[in-house]
């Protein structure tokens, strides 16, 4: 007979936690399934919104950045695709971060009434954003067909960068959502950060525009390396290896910090939420 013994003691860091994450693995996608289903209930257009939203944003961005900014266009590359290739990871990161940051508070009823490893909650909101990303990616492919632009073999490396973006969003998200339980300020700080991030990340412009002396500070933004990577895969834009390395480092730093802080404060979520 299998003994499932659990000891509950103050401060005990359960080895069971990681086993529980596996036991509750279905919750990862069931919670995102729930969020996606609920999103379009009682709407008329329904799932079409997942396509219209990124499409509209791209159109607006293309107009704004090409007419007004004229930032770093390259010959042979349709500007729309240049912008979109940068916007795609950014939208994913921004959405994932916003959703993850509020996920614990938004699921307060679950946190206070039922047990499962709480990390599942922000993780599933990142997965929901991944679904949106998938749809936008199809849109990108559509645009390539439209502009008759054929990306080269490097595009197969794209999943690596997607994974990186996912990790970055998860790392920061875990950290922020744990903080948010106790200090509700972060609910207001996040949209602000996302706004600023949009302008200091190479979404509307290409990294080559940034002058050499600012390059280091600029690269501290983890999304810089990731967006550059996306552009490299899709368009062949040259990448700065060192900047990329810094991005990866910062991403993993955030993940470690996020997981550490989350686990540390997890036990008191139910008391504070």
């Amino acid at each position: 007979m299998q003994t499932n013994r659990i000891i509950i003691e103050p401060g005990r860091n359960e080895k069971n936690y990681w086993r529980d994450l596996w036991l509750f693995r279905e919750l990862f996608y069931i919670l995102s399934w729930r969020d996606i289903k609920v999103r379009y209930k009682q709407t008329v257009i329904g799932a079409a919104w997942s396509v219209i939203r990124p499409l509209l944003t791209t159109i607006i961005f293309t107009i704004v950045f090409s007419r007004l900014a004229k930032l770093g266009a390259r010959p042979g590359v349709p500007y729309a695709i240049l912008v979109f290739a940068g916007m795609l990871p950014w939208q994913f990161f921004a959405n994932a971060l916003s959703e993850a940051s509020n996920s614990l508070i938004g699921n307060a009823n679950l946190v206070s009434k039922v047990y499962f490893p709480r990390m599942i909650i922000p993780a599933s909101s990142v997965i929901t954003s991944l679904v949106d990303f998938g749809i936008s990616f199809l849109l990108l492919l559509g645009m390539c067909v439209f502009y008759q632009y054929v990306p080269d073999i490097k595009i197969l490396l794209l999943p690596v960068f997607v994974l990186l973006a996912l990790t970055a969003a998860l790392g920061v998200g875990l950290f922020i959502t744990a903080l948010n339980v106790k200090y509700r300020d972060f609910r207001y700080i996040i949209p602000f950060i996302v706004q600023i991030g949009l302008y200091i990340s190479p979404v509307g412009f290409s990294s080559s525009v940034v002058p050499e002396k600012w390059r280091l500070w600029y690269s501290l933004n983890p999304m810089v390396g990731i967006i550059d990577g996306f552009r490299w895969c899709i368009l062949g834009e040259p990448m700065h290896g060192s900047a990329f390395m810094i991005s990866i480092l910062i991403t993993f730093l955030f993940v470690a910090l996020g997981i550490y802080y989350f686990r540390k404060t997890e036990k008191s979520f139910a008391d504070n939420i």
Partner: protein
Amino acid sequence: MLTIFDSSHMSDTVIKVEGLSKRFIISHEKRERYTSLGDVLTRRVKELFNNNASTQRETHEEFWALKDVEFEVKRGDRLGIIGRNGAGKSTLLKILSRITEPTKGRISIEGRVASLLEVGTGFHPELTGSENIFLNGAVLGMSRAEIKIKFDEIVAFAEVERFLDTPVKRYSSGMYVRLAFAVAAHLEPEILIVDEVLAVGDAQFQKKCLGKMEDVSKNEGRTVLFVSHDLNAISSLTKKVVVLKNGSVSMFDETIKSIAHYQADFRKPEAFIALAEKLSKPIYIKNVRVCNADEQDQTSFLYTESVAFEFIIEINDERIKCDLFVMVLDAKKRTVFALESNQISKKMKIILDPSYLVRGNYSISVLINQPKIGPVDEVEDVCSFEIIDNGSQMLKHGDYDYGSVFGKGKWMLS
């Protein structure tokens, strides 16, 4: 004689709670539970500059919701947990369910735990009944495959076949509760913890749930922990009861004994005390109280216990011949029966026969009656008391009105 040593009895204890304590900190300032980062930073900065100033920090008060709780539960037990509101029952369940952490102490649990602390945890109002079955089941720990297999059973238990595709926000509260319990009832945990969820729902539903919990424990060997204020339900389902009082275990014993202990403690003596105006009467009722056969104040009785009343009569004129007429009233103030004494004295007591009144709330009216003349003094509808049914033949009929007394007669079949 052959003795077979059964090793399964060695690890018979599935839950062992030792020295469990839980502390909450209450702060006495306008500070809210969710702090603003700005406040924290401002305060810290102020403290930096104010070395000698008494920090205007809020005074912390410690509130111990649980203090040194200890008990053990064996496999297949059905344990009840009772106590006044605020005694710590829900906190105890939350800790057992790993939702919150203890401050001190140790708990050892063997087996998968499923907790029903609230009806419809995780239900989303926009999703349909069947979607919520999957959602709720997953949240409670069932795998998709498991839910698929049990889907029809769950729907049948909940009796919501027709409404499976309607969003749950359109359900009546009864349907909602039935569906929520139906999912939880089909979990197969080794240990099931249920917290007062049965308070919602009609008698038929409660009966169904209690039946299922009993079934799960008797026939499948699972352990059930059940918190409720409904002493009838507790006494019919459980074998042992933990009584919590102000965070500590005040009793841990067989159900009947624990309930008696709880009731004795929980007294509401609604004794009657005469007002001064009556002094002019030749004879009047000064004091009436309800108690048990040992003259201790008691207001909640098992149906097998004797209810007693004590009367203090002030006799100013010894010559008057009267008797005491006592009427037992039901909750609707109808007279159930009456008793009459032949004489009167300064202190009188009557002990009612046990196993006569059915479960419910009662009170009494008392008269001093002068034969052929009429009542001299009267006290109406005092001393409310309660009869609790912990296992009579009628218990299974729940709320149904089967009268006020247990009938006596002989069945003859041919």
